[in-house]
């Protein structure tokens, strides 16, 4: 009996699971083409919401804020991560546990701590404070990834290069960086997605003026939502799919291992 149970029930369960996973997203995408202003009845196909989305100044402002914050914090966190892994490896190795703190503590504590810290020193909330928070988040992910890749490297590569007469910076650019490149790329992609998607730190540390994409979506969805957000979500779903498939591709070719 149990043989056919396994061969029948399990696949059924898995298909149900994938339905459960994908129906909400498909519905969301469908309703982005719904003509009615209120997302309740289906009034025919239209793409006006996409036009409205591209016309809305607020959406573009939120997107540009998000992109600025994400790119700057990716650049800062990955550069600092590579620097600390390459330069600090010999003597500061035992301090690397410092960086794992941000992963253990719940994110709300991080966000709240930052807000308390900024209000203590009366730092005005804005792009700078948001970048500070996201770079901190980024470091928490980038350092472990780059560090694990650096440990895999042959221990003597740096010494071999120095031994052959290269200066420390030549060693870095000719040997270490090319070898770290895949993990640096994976770390940047991951930090970029995390910073783009982050809500908690943005919610607490962004202040009222700077609205990032998640904050914009949150404020619209909180007041009942609008098809424009559906349109925006559809675009973000496809962009997300591109990024994940890209990472999957990298992983398939054993260039990068995150999971």
């Amino acid at each position, binding site marked *: 009996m149990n043989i056919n149970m396994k061969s029948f029930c399990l696949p059924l369960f898995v298909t149900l699971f994938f339905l459960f996973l994908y129906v909400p997203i498909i519905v969301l995408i469908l309703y982005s083409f719904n003509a009615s202003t209120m997302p*309740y009845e289906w009034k025919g196909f239209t793409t006006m919401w996409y036009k409205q989305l591209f016309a809305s100044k607020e959406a573009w402002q939120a997107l540009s804020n998000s992109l600025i914050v994400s790119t700057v914090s990716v650049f800062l966190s990955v550069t600092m991560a590579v620097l600390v892994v390459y330069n600090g490896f010999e003597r500061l190795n035992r301090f690397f546990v410092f960086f794992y703190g941000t992963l253990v503590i719940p994110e709300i504590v991080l966000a709240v701590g930052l807000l308390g810290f900024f209000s203590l020193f009366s730092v*005005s909330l804005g792009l700078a404070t948001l970048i500070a928070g996201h770079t901190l988040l980024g470091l928490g992910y980038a350092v472990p990834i780059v560090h694990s890749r650096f440990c895999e490297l042959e221990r003597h590569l740096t010494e071999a290069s120095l031994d052959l007469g290269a200066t420390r910076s030549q060693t870095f650019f000719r040997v270490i960086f090319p070898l770290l490149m895949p993990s640096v790329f994976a770390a940047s992609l991951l930090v970029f997605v995390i910073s783009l998607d982050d809500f908690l730190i943005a919610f607490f540390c962004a202040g*009222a003026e700077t609205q990032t994409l998640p904050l914009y979506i949150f404020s619209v969805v*909180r*007041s*009942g939502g609008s098809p424009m957000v559906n349109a925006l979500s559809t675009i973000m779903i496809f962009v997300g799919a591109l990024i994940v498939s890209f990472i999957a591709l990298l992983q398939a070719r054993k260039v990068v291992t995150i999971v």
Partner: protein
Amino acid sequence: MQNSRLYTIMMRSVMVFFWVCVLVMFLGFSHIVHFFRSERSINIFSWPTLLDVSYLERFERETGITLHVSYYETNEELFSKLRATKGSGYDLVIPSDYVVELMIKEGLLQKIDQTKIHAWPELDPKLLSLYCDPHNDYTIPYFWAVYGLGIDTAYFKDALPEVSWDLIFDSKKIPSSIGMLDAAREAVLLAAFYLYGSSDIAMTPEHIAKIKKLLIEQKRFVGAYTESNIEHLLLGKLCPLVVAMGPDILRIQRVNPAIKFVIPKEGSFVVIDSFAIPAKSTKVDLVYEFINFLLKSDVLEHHRAKFGMCCPTKKMQSIHDQTICPSDEEFAKMKFFKTTLPEALLNEIWIQLMAY
């Protein structure tokens, strides 16, 4: 050998200090921007739904004064920010009446010169000499609005019930599910007003206990505690009845005429947002220029049409939509959200309600 170790430590601490300074510069960047703001500029701190950006640009074009507008979501945020900077950093704020009282007590505002306000004589007398600023030394009334009930008449078809606060507090009369305010102060004072006819009374522990019981009983019927999401509740047919401010219901009425705004017969609450100038602001005359611009009748009319709030000047009274901006005698029955309970107690009641 020993001193080279000392030098290394010194050198390293200089390095650490260098990076800390870079960080402080990075964070203080926005402050520095404040310094370099041109002389002819004022910093405004206001509600997001009070000033229309296109009119601000028009003002900048006409007068050459650059405006730096930042927004707050709750009065508490405005009050705590102003208190943190001891009344500096902003040149014009637009607080609601109950916060004005607190600000004056803490000395965060400076006196205003009524003669500088051209539209002063046209201001509606009922908005002047409020409880929070009897002689209008510190504030100039701007827009105001009234709380009430948003009713989906389609749900009740023709059997429209008699409009009173029983509809949201008396378990026998409450329809299937209602939308309730999600702010501690408004909900608690509304409940006090329903129970004792006024929220302006000395609150004894029994009062508070009864208020708590009333709110907790009401929770069974509440579809959602929200003020920003009432559009979804009404149009999505989730709740036939919501507690809201007049302007919000007016906006929904444009989409679905069946939704009406009604002020309960027992009276209701009114919130008046008024201009005030922080204590340490040095650009008072520029601020007066901006206030005069905002109080011009055409600018007032545009903002009234866009946000649906009620205007402060008598002349505009006539073009008001009577349902959301009550006439003078009805206004007399209106109550204010005066602080009769310490804030800590308000929060405690609210958290207990939410935890329930």
